[in-house]
């Protein structure tokens, strides 16, 4: 039995070697042969399903305490707002309405997901200039969309910003140290 298996394996290896020799030899003499090693990228047209996906709104079932590492909270507000108050365990990716998030920011989110083993990413953040009379701008949905386009799985955006999270009982940390 073992002898048969060894003989079969040797035969199989022999076929592959012979086939490789025939293939390379034939390719070398045919007029439409291709180089053994290409140095020109193939033009691949295989769009990713995720790149076409749109960000979905998070609901209560997507939220967890900041200490729960299965959920990564991404705060899209400017750094000053984040420093003033933020969700415990969240990371800050300041989203620019004009320029979006930077490649470094996207890479930071990926690193954080890998480090925590997070299964969900909840993006939140609305922002209005201090003392502005204009309505707050939603930064969460466009950032979530950008993360999805960067092929990050499990991304949702939360409507209502940090206030909505506080209503759901998620702990926040204020600059003064309070919650």
């Amino acid at each position: 039995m073992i002898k048969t298996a060894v003989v079969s394996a040797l035969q199989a290896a022999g076929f592959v070697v012979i086939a490789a020799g025939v293939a390379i030899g034939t390719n070398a003499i045919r007029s439409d042969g291709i180089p053994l090693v290409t140095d020109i990228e193939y033009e691949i047209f295989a769009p990713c399903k995720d790149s076409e996906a749109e960000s979905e709104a998070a609901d209560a079932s997507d939220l967890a305490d900041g200490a729960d590492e299965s959920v990564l909270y991404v705060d899209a507000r400017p750094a000053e707002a984040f420093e003033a108050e933020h969700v415990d365990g969240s990371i800050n990716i300041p989203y620019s309405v004009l320029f979006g998030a930077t490649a470094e920011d996207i890479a930071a989110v990926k690193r954080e997901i890998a480090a925590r083993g997070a299964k969900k990413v909840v993006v939140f953040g609305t922002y209005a200039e201090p003392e502005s009379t204009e309505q707050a701008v939603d930064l969460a949905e466009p950032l979530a969309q950008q993360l999805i386009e960067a092929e990050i799985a499990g991304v949702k955006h939360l409507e209502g910003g940090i206030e909505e999270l506080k209503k759901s009982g998620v702990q926040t940390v204020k600059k003064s140290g309070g919650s």
Partner: protein
Amino acid sequence: MSDVKTWIKDGFGVVARLALAGTFIWACIHKIAEPYDFGLQVATYQILPLSLVNLQAIVLPWVELIVGLLLIAGLLTRGAALVTCGMNVMFIVAIALALAADLHLQCGCFSSAEAGDEMDASLIVRDAIFLVVGAAVTLMRPDRFTLDRLIERRRQNA
């Protein structure tokens, strides 16, 4: 073993062997005829580094052809069937990785007849069936219609 059982076993052996051979030979024709197109299909899976794409595209169809011809002839049948098992495992892994990455592509297994048919999980089932058939041919004694058995009989009579 009774004659009926032996005939059933040999009958299965012939059908399995010829089904595998036919599939692999049919699959290799367009790949050998159009190496660039097949190279593009290999590249589309985005599994191999660019430096290995062409080598794979050149060698794989010839392995399919040689193994297919050996299976038809029933020569070194077990070794040839073992190669089909290895190739089917490779195809299953490649398709699974492409599906996991949500790549929308055609499998590139056969001719352009399948152009437009997007790959799905049914291809894994199909290749798994071929894998089981290949494993059966590898493990079984070659059927009575193979050259292996003819050579064996000649040796015994000599």
